[in-house]
C-alpha cells in the first residue's frame, strides 16, 4: 500500500473515527460512573447492615445490664447495682446519637441516662448508708427500671424485624 493510499484512507475516515471515539468515551465514562455509584451504594448497604447488627448487640448488652441492676436490687448487692448502672449509662450515652435510632428512641435514651443517674444517686444515698433499710429498691425505681427494659425491648424488636426485612 503506497503512502498516498494511506493518507487518502485517513482523510476519508478521520472525522467519523473521532466522532465514534468521542461517543465511546462518553459511554465508557457513564458506565464507569454507574459502576462507582453501584459499588458505593452496595458498600453503604453493607456498612448499614453491620451498623444495625452492632446496635442490636449494644441494646442486648444494655438489656442485660438493666436486668442485672434489678437482680442486684433484689439481692441487695448495691456495689454491683451501681457498677451495672454505670456501665449501662456509658452505653446509653454512646448510643444517644446513633443514626439508626428513631428520634423518639433517642429521646428515650436521654431520659434513661437521666433516670440511671437518679437510680445511682438513690442507691448511694438511701441504700449504702450504714443505717439504711435492708430492702430492695423503692417501687418507683423498680418501675422505672422495668420501663427501661420495655423501651429497650421495643428497640430490639424493631431492629430485629428490620434485619429480617433485609
Amino acid at each position, binding site marked *: 500500500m503506497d503512502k498516498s493510499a494511506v493518507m487518502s484512507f485517513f482523510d476519508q475516515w478521520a472525522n467519523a473515527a473521532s466522532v465514534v471515539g468521542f461517543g465511546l468515551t462518553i459511554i465508557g465514562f457513564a458506565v464507569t460512573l454507574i459502576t462507582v455509584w453501584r459499588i458505593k451504594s452496595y458498600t453503604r448497604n453493607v456498612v448499614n447492615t453491620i451498623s444495625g447488627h452492632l446496635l442490636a448487640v449494644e441494646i442486648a448488652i444494655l438489656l442485660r445490664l438493666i436486668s442485672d441492676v434489678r437482680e442486684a436490687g433484689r439481692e441487695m448487692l448495691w456495689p454491683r447495682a451501681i457498677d451495672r448502672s454505670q456501665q449501662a449509662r456509658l452505653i446509653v450515652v454512646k448510643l444517644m446519637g446513633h443514626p439508626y435510632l428513631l428520634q423518639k428512641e433517642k*429521646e428515650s435514651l*436521654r*431520659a434513661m*441516662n*437521666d*433516670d*440511671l*443517674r*437518679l*437510680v445511682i444517686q*438513690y442507691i448511694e444515698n438511701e441504700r449504702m448508708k450504714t443505717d439504711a433499710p435492708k430492702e430492695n429498691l*423503692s417501687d*418507683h*425505681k423498680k418501675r*422505672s*427500671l422495668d420501663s427501661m427494659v420495655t423501651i429497650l425491648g421495643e428497640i430490639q424488636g424493631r431492629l430485629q424485624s428490620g434485619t429480617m426485612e433485609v
Partner: protein
Amino acid sequence: MDPESIRGLMMRLTNGTHAGKLKWEETAEEEDFRLILDAGIIHIRRTNQIRPDFGKYALLIFNKNNTLVGRLQPEIDPDKSNLSRLFDLARNSALNPSGLLDRLEEELKKRSG
C-alpha cells in the same frame, strides 16, 4: 448561674407549661418531673412527700452532659409559691390525670356503644 436568670426561666416554664406547649415527664424519682430540651434537662422536685404542705421545691438545671449547672431552692415567697405552682403544672403535664380520665371514658363509650 445567676438566680435572676433562673427566675426568668421559671416564669417562662410556668407560662409554657400552662399553655400546654411544654411536656414534662416522670422520672425514676418520686415527686420529680423532667423536661427534656435540646440544650439540657430541667428537673422540678418536691422533697417532703409525706407532708406536701411543708414540702420544699427545687428547680434543677442540667446541661447536655447531665452536669448540674443551676439550682433554685427557695425558702420564702414569692419564689416558693411560684415554684410550687410550676410543680403542680409539671405534675399535671407528666401524669395528665384528667386527660387519662377523658381517654378512658371515650374508650368505654366506644366499646359499650
